[in-house]
């Protein structure tokens, strides 16, 4: 029986190849990492002698060794706040790596951790990003920076002052967005083998890109980039952006191998993962919206404190700037003021996490849109309609520099209201309210950016600073196709997938392009930087596949066919323009008896170079790197097209709050998506469902929580609550398919979509439910305890 995806048979039978399943090199030893129990502490001394004396222990690596053997990771803060793969002078968050034990096996390595004595001097900690900046007594994390502000940028578009002067109504809210991460079920895993004879370092890991981290690791280790080889297996157990931030461990385990002289493996355990791998930032913000009486948005101001934790780990400050081109969401206002602080605190480090910065953005924007509608006594759906960018305006240049490719936002809204029977829901709500029930309806709209432009990262610098540097741009993805002498095809993709079905989709589309059966095509995923084609933006992040990944595959296939067509024309003694390709055969137009099969044309390229047309190289091995001409560096006004395709989602949900327990029940959720042409509805639906549940987790359950002294509270899956089978409400999705003019198949990314709007939508719905009590949801997650406290307070005030 045919399975739905090519990936499925191996994964269903236990034959996948995940990182921890690989046979890499012989004699692999194991690492265990000693981590700081304190949020902020000076490391006075580390005594590893007892550990080193233990049988089976090879070496103990400390920050002192790491500072000698490597350099800090390069970042937007060139010479400050040095970030190494081990703490050097101070520990700045609970779980920060302090030392690495290398031993014969994992059990022994973990035993040895207990024998390392670290002399810490505890220091006061700060965890709130706003307090870290404004409180003069807040401890300073990095003395050389002298403040906890890692970066501060003010960005101004249009004339925000004028917009606020003209406003009939202004609403302003303080909002808190929590720290959470997608916690892929497979944790980080690394095997590093230093080859002293050749001075090469080979690192196997479940890193999923961007491969811009390859030069970052090479520079940190001080080794030539062509001596550093990254190998990634074909299967990765979920990523969602989190596994981008594995790269400091690639350096660390690489150093451990070099230091100990043996190949070293490290598999992160779940406690380490929760306390120290990666998450989105927690954000404290003030969002202010100016509107006219009819609900037209005139301008927005945002003051943002984004908490990147103890160090500044690239690609941060993507949390703040990755969505810059779509800061206005789906709305047509032109005036925007952004005051962004990227802040150090004693929390763990942050990085890309599904939606990267967008859940934060839309939580702010969509909350104030709702409050404006409420203040004006207007329907939240109608207020949104009034402000949507009209279909005729695409491609649409946003004030922040985004170039929205295509979309029919109003059609999404119409479909949403109709599918959900919005009027019926409101009637039902009115009725429920009469019976004292707390029923609410919430909206959230968002623009879903995909294929980030490498240029956006330079927004961290001012236009003047940028002038002194080389610019960055582009969003390249490469594909390699080889056709063997029997016409069988092998495709190497460079998207390092983590469950997004790339093998299936590439095989299907290349089969269509080449006019051959799918079974004749094998797709190789994973990566080997020494032997395969890759470039800086390679990998899977920023929903790249359905935009640039598949475009790259299709264009590569077309190049293959073009070459085979030239070979066939030469063989058929016809001009290439007179040759057509039908059903796997090249044939002369008007003379179908003069034909050559696909595999015979391929055979000539391998077996008979003498019969190739002049100037044609033997073999069929084509690599094509595809980029987006729209991915340009920021301009002098700080405008940047931070992504390259932009989808749209219009969400609506119905909730009920239990007065007694504070529990929120999401009764139903609707989402309408315009992500261009949908390449496969079943797979797209899977991506939306998964991203919906990640959004739900952030809105209602998941938080990497700290007490105010910096102690970490959610170190196991018993405390960090991922939604299970029992927490998932019914989701109904609909599609509006406006083709993207910028991609080969008209498709765009969709994997992050729902996760960006769900937190805002649930907050708006719960606020709507609690409106009769005057309660607003301006912080997440909406846990029963939180809601119960609000209810108690409202009652005592009433």
């Amino acid at each position: 029986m045919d399975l739905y995806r090519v990936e499925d048979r191996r994964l269903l039978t236990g034959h996948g190849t995940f990182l921890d399943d690989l046979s890499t090199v012989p004699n692999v030893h194991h690492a265990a990492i000693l981590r700081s129990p304190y949020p902020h502490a000076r490391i006075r001394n580390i005594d590893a002698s007892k550990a080193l004396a233990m049988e089976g222990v090879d070496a103990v690596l400390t920050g002192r060794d790491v500072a000698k053997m490597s350099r800090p990771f390069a970042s937007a803060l060139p010479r400050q706040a040095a970030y190494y793969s081990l703490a050097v002078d101070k520990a700045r968050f609970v779980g920060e790596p302090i030392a690495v034990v290398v031993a014969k096996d994992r059990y022994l390595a973990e035993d040895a951790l207990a024998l390392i004595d670290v002399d810490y001097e505890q220091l006061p900690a700060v965890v709130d990003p706003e307090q870290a900046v404004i409180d003069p007594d807040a401890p300073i994390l990095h003395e050389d920076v002298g403040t906890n502000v890692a970066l501060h940028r003010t960005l101004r578009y249009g004339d925000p002052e004028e917009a606020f002067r003209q406003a009939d109504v202004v609403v302003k809210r303080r909002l808190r967005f929590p720290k959470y991460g997608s916690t892929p079920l497979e944790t980080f895993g690394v095997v590093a083998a230093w080859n002293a004879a050749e001075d090469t370092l080979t690192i196997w890991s479940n890193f999923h890109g961007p491969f811009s981290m390859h030069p970052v690791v090479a520079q940190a280790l001080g080794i030539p980039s062509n001596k550093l080889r990254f190998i990634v297996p074909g299967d990765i157990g979920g990523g969602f952006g989190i596994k981008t931030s594995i790269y400091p461990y690639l350096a660390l385990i690489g150093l451990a191998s070099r230091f100990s002289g043996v190949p070293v493996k490290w598999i992160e355990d779940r406690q380490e993962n929760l306390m120290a791998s990666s998450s989105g930032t927690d954000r404290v913000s003030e969002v202010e919206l100016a509107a006219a009486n009819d609900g037209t948005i005139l301008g927005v101001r945002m003051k943002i404190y984004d908490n990147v934790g103890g160090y500044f780990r690239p690609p941060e400050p993507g949390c703040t700037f990755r969505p810059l081109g779509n800061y206005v969401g789906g709305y047509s206002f032109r005036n925007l003021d952004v005051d962004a602080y990227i802040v150090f605190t004693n929390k763990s480090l942050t990085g890309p996490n599904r939606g990267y910065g967008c859940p934060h953005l839309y939580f702010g924007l969509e909350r104030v849109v709702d409050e404006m509608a409420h203040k004006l006594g207007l329907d939240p759906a109608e207020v949104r309609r009034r402000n949507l960018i009209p279909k005729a305006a695409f491609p649409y240049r946003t004030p922040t520099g985004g170039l929205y490719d295509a979309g029919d936002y109003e059609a999404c809204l119409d479909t949403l209201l109709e599918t959900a029977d919005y009027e019926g829901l409101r009637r039902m709500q009115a009725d429920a309210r009469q019976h004292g029930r707390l029923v609410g309806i919430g909206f959230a709209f968002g623009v879903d950016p995909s294929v980030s432009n490498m240029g956006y990262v330079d927004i961290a610098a001012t236009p003047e600073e940028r002038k002194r540097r080389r610019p960055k741009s582009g969003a390249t993805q490469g594909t390699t196709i080889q056709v063997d002498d029997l016409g069988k095809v092998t495709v190497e993709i460079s998207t390092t997938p983590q469950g997004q079905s790339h093998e299936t989709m590439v095989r299907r589309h290349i089969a269509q392009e080449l006019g051959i059966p799918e079974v004749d095509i094998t797709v190789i995923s994973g990566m080997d930087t020494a032997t395969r084609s890759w470039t800086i933006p390679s990998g899977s992040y920023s929903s790249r596949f359905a935009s640039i990944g598949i475009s790259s595959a299709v264009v590569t296939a077309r190049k293959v066919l073009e070459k085979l067509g030239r070979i066939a024309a030469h063989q058929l003694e016809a001009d290439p323009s007179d040759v057509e390709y039908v059903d796997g055969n090249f044939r002369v137009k008007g003379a179908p008896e003069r034909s050559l099969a696909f595999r015979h044309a391929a055979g000539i390229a391998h077996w008979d170079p003498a019969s190739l047309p002049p100037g044609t190289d033997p073999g069929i091995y084509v690599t094509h790197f595809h980029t987006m001409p729209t991915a340009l560096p920021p301009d002098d006004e700080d405008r940047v097209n931070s992504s390259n395709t932009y989808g749209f989602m219009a969400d609506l949900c119905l909730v009920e709050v239990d007065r007694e327990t504070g529990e929120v029940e999401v009764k139903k959720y609707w989402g309408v998506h315009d992500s261009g042409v949908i390449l496969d509805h079943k797979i797209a639906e899977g991506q939306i469902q998964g991203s919906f549940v990640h959004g739900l987790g952030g809105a209602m359950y998941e938080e990497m929580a700290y007490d105010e002294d910096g102690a970490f509270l959610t170190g196991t899956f018993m405390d960090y609550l991922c939604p299970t089978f029992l927490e998932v409400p019914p989701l109904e999705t609909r599609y509006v398919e406006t083709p993207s003019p910028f991609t080969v198949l008209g498709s765009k990314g969709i994997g992050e979509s729902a996760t960006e709007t769900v937190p805002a939508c649930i907050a708006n719905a719960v606020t709507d439910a609690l409106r009769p009590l005057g309660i607003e949801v301006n912080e997440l997650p909406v846990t029963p305890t939180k809601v119960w406290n609000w209810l108690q307070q409202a009652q005592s005030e009433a």
Partner: protein
Amino acid sequence: MAEMRTGHLEDALFEAREIACTVNGKLYRAMAEPRRLLSDFIREDLDLKGTHVGCEHGVCGACTILFNGQPARSCLMFAVQADGAEIVTVEGLARSPQQLTRLQESFSQEHALQCGYCTPGMLISATALLSENPSPTDSEVRHAMAGQLCRCTGYEQIVRAVLAAADSDGKGGEGGNHA
């Protein structure tokens, strides 16, 4: 090191013992230290990499195996506890990779797996459910599988796959029909 291994407790922890167990119908004899986790034993010593580890503290369910016919978390057991036991791992569900069980096929058809990391545990747990209750309701599936985490799919497609495998012959799936 010497001082770590003097007490009786340490001796008991470190001295490997021989155990014999049947895994996927095949008898294995192997040495295992008393503290060796069953999940490590299966993955490293028996080289059956299909059983995955997602938390090692009994919450995610990725490591679920059938232990004497019952679903069990191999990360919460020691290898020595498997002495004399009959175990089925994901590798033992299908007769061969070309002859999948109905449950495995419906997982594929319903797109109930993305990265596939949770899938072995999901399949084992659903197999156990269907052999106890061949026609579960939607809510019975959810409750029976609430101890299995998936971070990719958002669960709905998995529920559909289990129900489809149960419905396909009207009286329940043949997922439990291994060796």
